[in-house]
């Protein structure tokens, strides 16, 4: 059998896993591994400028491709810098394997140079972690790490490797395991058939149904099945922020996003529904508003691969533990069977027509895409900037975002027709996510258009990655909705703190982003005039091999609406503008 050092084993195992990119940053405890990377010259490594960016880039790669992202960092500060990105992936259930160097085994616990207890500090934000104790175990641990990260409810896995175990002179047998089985880890692969039958009956008897689909449908590759099912039933569909693209946004049956900044028609339909089919969604507090007032008349069917997501927030009538794919197939078959059975259970056609009439009335009254719901100003409106982006990219781009108002405008106004195109940090809400994530996606899909919608606050959290983009020639487009404020913070301060802008502005100290982009060898464009918006956007996307930073000056005082009324509001209680509420 082949003999390899620990460092070589790690690189070889990544190769055997079919890893396309390692996103990382070297340092003392990882140097043997880095030397192995150099010698093997097999898996390309992307040298970021900050370890947080390595995790976000791997995360963006994973969200867009469905394959696990891979990160390599050194011990101590390298490991701690990776933490925010690991937590971001954890909150949104993204598959990722993070390999961290550790000080030599005999120094562990001695406060050695660059020692931190990586397994300890990452414990609450990983799906699992390993501390390698013997070089011989490296192949099986890496195999398990990928297995755990990608199956069941996906998530990040940390593998911490003490430096001595990667020493080039200590060689051991290497064989990469073909499969893995763990008695303590067996995620569900199929929903309970009795529950599926109950769910089908409940759905077919619904008079005011809504399908509420989340990130699990995208991660679990269930979009097509979900779309078929929804069309077959002619039931309305709403997506969470994480689920956008799970159902085509331009379809008539799509109600838009639901939740805190969700569409009026989506929130109204949820609140007044009698049956909710929740698929791969986790009843987040940004969705439910006050839990005790959540959808009072609804019976709930909940499909989720993680039993702990079910009945965590709201009681559920029909829980189904299983992956979206097999469960939706079974459910579809059940529905067909019940419709053709002797009892011929059919949806109450008249009730469904009435329900659609009601929904269309809501749409016409305050629907987001029904006419223009926001004001005019001398400035470019942020919503118009997103619409211009949508048009310039024919709705086909991969769009990443940072966190804030710009994120919500992108979620509302870019109509995502396909899964995996909308890439943002929902659960942790990590400013600084957008640019490195875009980088990871563009590397995976060089021919696709990749845009990062950001704000002047967020972009500065990982702006250094403009350098990485220069090194590896990553021509993403940065769409900076510059409102000169930490806009989302300012919005809350307007609404709840009498417009006392405590530490939410910095206009006088912002850099000249055009020059900054140019300093890194990229193209910068400043857009202030409404008339320039569309042509500039097209010009930017026409520069296929250039990173273009579009600094778009937008109306500084615009708010994101609808917005749930809090505290104590139900889903139907929304602010529709600065002055109107439901």
């Amino acid at each position, binding site marked *: 059998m082949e003999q390899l050092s620990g460092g070589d084993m790690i690189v070889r195992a990544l190769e055997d896993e079919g890893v396309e990119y390692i996103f990382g940053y070297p340092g003392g405890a990882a140097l043997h591994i880095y030397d192995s990377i150099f010698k093997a010259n097999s898996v390309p490594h992307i040298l970021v400028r900050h370890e947080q960016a390595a995790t976000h880039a791997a995360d963006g790669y994973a969200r867009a491709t469905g394959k696990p992202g891979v990160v390599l960092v050194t011990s101590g500060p390298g490991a701690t810098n990776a933490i925010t990105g690991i937590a971001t992936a954890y909150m949104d259930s993204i598959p990722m394997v993070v390999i961290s160097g550790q000080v030599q085994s005999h120094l562990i616990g001695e406060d050695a140079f660059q020692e931190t207890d990586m*397994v*300890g500090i990452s*414990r*609450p934000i990983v*799906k*699992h*972690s390993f*501390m390698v*104790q013997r070089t011989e175990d490296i192949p099986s641990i890496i195999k398990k790490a990928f297995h*755990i990260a990608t199956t069941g409810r996906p998530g990040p896995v940390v593998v911490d490797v003490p430096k001595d175990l990667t020493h080039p002179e200590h060689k051991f047998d290497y064989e990469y395991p073909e499969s893995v089985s*763990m*008695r*303590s*880890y067996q995620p569900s692969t199929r929903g309970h058939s009795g529950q599926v039958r109950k769910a089908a009956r409940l759905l077919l008897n619904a008079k005011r149904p809504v399908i509420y689909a989340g990130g699990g449908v995208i991660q679990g590759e269930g979009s097509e099945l979900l779309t078929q099912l929804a069309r077959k039933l002619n039931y309305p569909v709403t997506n969470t922020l994480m689920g956008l693209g799970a159902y085509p946004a331009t379809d008539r049956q799509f109600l838009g996003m639901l939740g805190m900044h969700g569409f009026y028609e989506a929130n109204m339909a949820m609140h007044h529904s009698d049956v909710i089919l929740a698929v791969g969604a986790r009843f987040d507090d940004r969705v439910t508003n006050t839990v005790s007032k959540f959808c009072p008349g609804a019976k709930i069917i909940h499909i989720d691969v*993680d*039993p*702990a997501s079910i*009945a*965590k927030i709201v009681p559920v009538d029909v829980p189904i533990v299983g992956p979206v794919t097999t469960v939706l197939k079974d459910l579809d078959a059940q529905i067909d069977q019940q419709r053709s059975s002797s009892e011929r259970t059919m949806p109450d056609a008249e009730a469904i027509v009435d329900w659609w009439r009601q929904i269309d009335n809501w749409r016409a009254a305050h629907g987001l895409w029904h006419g223009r719901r926001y004001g005019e100003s001398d400035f470019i409106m942020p919503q118009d900037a997103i619409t211009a982006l949508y048009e310039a990219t024919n709705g086909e781009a991969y769009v990443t975002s940072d966190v804030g108002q710009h994120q919500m405008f992108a979620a509302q106004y870019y109509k995502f027709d396909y899964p995996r195109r909308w890439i943002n940090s929902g659960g942790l809400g990590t400013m600084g996510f957008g640019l490195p994530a875009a980088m990871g996606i563009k590397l995976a899909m060089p021919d696709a258009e990749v845009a990062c919608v950001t704000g002047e606050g967020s972009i500065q959290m990982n702006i250094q990655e403009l350098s990485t983009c220069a090194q590896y020639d990553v021509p993403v487009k940065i769409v900076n909705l510059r409102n000169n404020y930490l806009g989302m913070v300012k919005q809350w301060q307007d609404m709840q703190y009498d417009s006392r802008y405590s530490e939410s502005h910095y206009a006088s100290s912002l850099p000249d982003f055009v020059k900054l982009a140019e300093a890194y060898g990229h193209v910068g464009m400043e857009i202030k005039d409404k008339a320039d918006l569309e042509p500039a956007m097209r010009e930017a996307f026409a520069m296929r091999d250039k990173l273009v930073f579009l600094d778009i000056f937008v109306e500084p005082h615009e708010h994101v609406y609808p917005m749930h009324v809090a505290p104590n509001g139900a889903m139907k209680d929304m602010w529709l503008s600065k002055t109107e509420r439901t």
Partner: protein
Amino acid sequence: MRRILSVLMENEPGALSRVVGLFSQRGYNIESLNVAPTTDNTLSRLTLTTTGDDLKIEQITKHLNKIVDVVKVVDLTEGAHVERDMLLVKVRAEGAQRDEVKRTTDIFRGQIIDVGPATYIVQLTGPIDKLDSFLSALGEAEILEVVRSGVAGIARGEKVLTI
């Protein structure tokens, strides 16, 4: 309601900290915790007592099961079971108290396992309420130190917790 959860987990480094971490991270409380190896040296068995309504216990059980190192979880309080806690107590045993402590210990079927010139160590095993009443029955005697093992439990009859 008080529950006794029995957990079989891989005998891996860090497994215990994942279980304990879960409780602090999600704001669940642990009343007692007892961990020891089993006859299968790849597994350890953990018994913990906690309180909460059905919903909370359901979440705790689900989250315990989610921990990759956890092989099995059983709520012993759902069925007939036996539970034992062990108490070691060092008491001042001088003058009249020397006989008094001995008498109380006998009544509770405890054992005096160490006899010092002015102290006894008493060992007592039983369900926690028995140990609690013993401690209060010691009355006048001065308790110098108390240590308890935490509850260990096992289902009655044919039911076994193995893999």
